[in-house]
């Protein structure tokens, strides 16, 4: 190519630099945050992973001790309680929030009046932090302050609702509060998806003779599979992470009856000077999240590849 020798000669050095900048400006902008994430997220995951294989107590030590902490962890009854609680809480919370959110969305989809207002009312709890939710529900469920006292003052003396101080039932109060906070969010997800459904499909189903419940069950909800999946994963990771709600609502009690893995981890690492044990429990939580996320990513990627 000898079309323009003048410019090529007069700009011998500048050209490559500006070209290089143009192609790499995006990478340059992203680089700092990328480095920070690598260090503070994945770096510390790796560090925690290593520490979980040591006998660290108050301060981290770095001599490798194998699975000692994991064996200790799984021998602790409190850890078993925490994992069982996670299973009960997570299962109920995810199930109820999705079912409730889905029903609310279907109800709102019937073009009810004041829909905008209702949507805000249901969505609003999501804007509150779990600490506030926990504190508010602690007052509501407190037998001496909230619901029970209210019914008593209305003359229903035999009414009793003491789940908060009942070690068999305390875990369910967490479910109630978490569902209250999150089902509006799930509803918003579903409502947006329902609004995206072609109204002609519903008309066609009417003409085909399907009842309203049939239309939702057989035609519309199956098309919302992606929304079910996203809600499930959002709620699942909220469940595994739940820490502040427990702190504010039950404090893990009565006793350790409503403790969750995150609380266990905090307790061991920062209160009882058992950094190694805390790290091991943190790694178990990571494994739990992985067990959920990896199949999801796998199925997503595979679906993308198949078009």
């Amino acid at each position, binding site marked *: 190519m000898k079309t323009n020798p003048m410019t090529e000669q007069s700009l011998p050095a500048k050209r490559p630099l500006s070209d290089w900048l143009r192609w790499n400006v995006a990478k340059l902008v992203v680089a700092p945050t990328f480095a920070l994430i690598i260090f503070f997220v994945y770096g510390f995951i790796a560090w925690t992973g290593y520490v979980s294989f040591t006998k660290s107590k108050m301060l981290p030590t770095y001599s490798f001790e194998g699975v000692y902490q994991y064996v200790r962890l799984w021998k602790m009854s409190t850890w078993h309680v925490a994992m069982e609680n996670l299973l009960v809480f997570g299962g109920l919370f995810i199930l109820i929030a999705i079912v409730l959110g889905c029903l609310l969305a279907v109800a709102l989809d019937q073009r009810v009046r004041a829909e905008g207002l209702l949507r805000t009312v249901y969505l609003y709890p999501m804007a509150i932090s779990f600490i506030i939710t926990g504190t508010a529900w602690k007052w509501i469920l407190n037998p001496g302050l909230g619901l029970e006292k209210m019914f008593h003052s209305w003359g229903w003396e035999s009414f009793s609702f003491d789940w908060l101080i009942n070690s068999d039932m305390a875990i369910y109060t967490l479910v109630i509060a978490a569902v209250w906070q999150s089902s509006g969010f799930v509803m918003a997800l579903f409502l947006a998806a329902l609004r995206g459904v*072609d109204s*002609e*499909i519903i*008309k*066609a*189903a*009417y*003409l*085909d*003779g*399907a009842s309203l419940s*049939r239309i939702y069950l057989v*035609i519309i909800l*199956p*098309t919302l599979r992606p929304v079910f999946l996203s809600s499930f994963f959002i709620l699942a990771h909220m469940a595994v992470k739940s820490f502040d709600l427990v702190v504010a609502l039950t404090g893990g009690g009565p006793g350790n009856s409503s403790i969750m893995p995150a609380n266990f981890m905090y307790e061991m690492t920062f209160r009882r000077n058992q950094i190694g044990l805390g790290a091991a429990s943190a790694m178990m939580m990571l494994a739990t999240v992985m067990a959920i996320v990896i199949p999801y990513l796998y199925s997503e990627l595979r679906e993308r590849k198949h078009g």
Partner: protein
Amino acid sequence: MATLTIQNVKKSYGAVDVLKGIDLELENGEFLVLLGPSGCGKSTLLNMIAGLDTITDGEILINSKVVNDVHPKDRDIAMVFQSYALYPNMTVERNIGFGLEMRKVTKADREKRVDEAVRMLQIDHLRDRKPAQLSGGQRQRVAMGRALVRKPEIFLFDEPLSNLDAKLRVEMRTEIKKLHQRLGTTMVYVTHDQIEAMTLASRIAILREGEIQQFASPQEVYERPANMYVAGFVGSPAMNFIPATVVSEDNQLGVSIERTANGERSSVFLALPDDLQDIGEWVGREVILGIRPETLTHRSDAEMSQNKRLQPFDCQVEVLEPTGADTLTYIELGGREVIARVNPYNTSNPGETMAFMVDMGKASLFDPKSELRI
């Protein structure tokens, strides 16, 4: 098969009157096309026939029975939607059979009827696919299949071909026509494409802003449009509208039109045919003369001597647009641009004066104020 009667049907959304009193009457096995521009209320009317939308006022009768309050599923109507509206999570087979499934038709019977439908529409190799795995034309066929298996009294189509490419549209149009001839079912078909309307309809209803402009056979709509709106909407290229004055010459009524010939401005007299001789009250007044391009062509003395309605005039040619079969010749009459359809071997060059003849037997006269046919 069924008759369909629509009596003074109105529809308002709040203060907006979308349909302002529609009257239509369909015989058994008729093919009605609702033709009109976007937003004139075609889909609204169709949805009301199907029962998917409430009626503000008036009555809809199927087989002489008022169905205003009958649930859509009990009206024995099937509809093909513009977006096809296939159920995305069901296979083609289940999509087609779903209406029968809901009506508790036995599995064996259902399979037989679905089989018949997919064969008829030549989609039997697609029966296990999901809608997302089909092309637009194939989805269209599935949507038709879903309507077909139900063997309804009335078929409704809401612009079923508007999402297809030009070639497929023509093919499917023919198939719909064949389908109607084979089944003989009453059909109502919505479109804004006047060619679709002309080719398919046994009668056309032209809608404009919620009012019916004309309800007649395609030929009648084409030859005797009820007003200037219909005349301009149907036909391509559109009908020429020429301002003219009604005059009487030698005891004969005709129209006088301004034009340029041989470099001079002058009027030309075109005699009106016998069936338009009784408009004496219009003498001396302005009218709009409506002439279809194909009735305006180069002069042939042989033809003129046979047909008294052919009227001659000369006019200067402005522009030529060859289309292959014919050359569209632009001339100026009464201050308007007018198109004549001329055989390519008989054209004159732009700027020259050419000899034309016009078939006044096929001309329409309109009142310039009300725009109605005279």
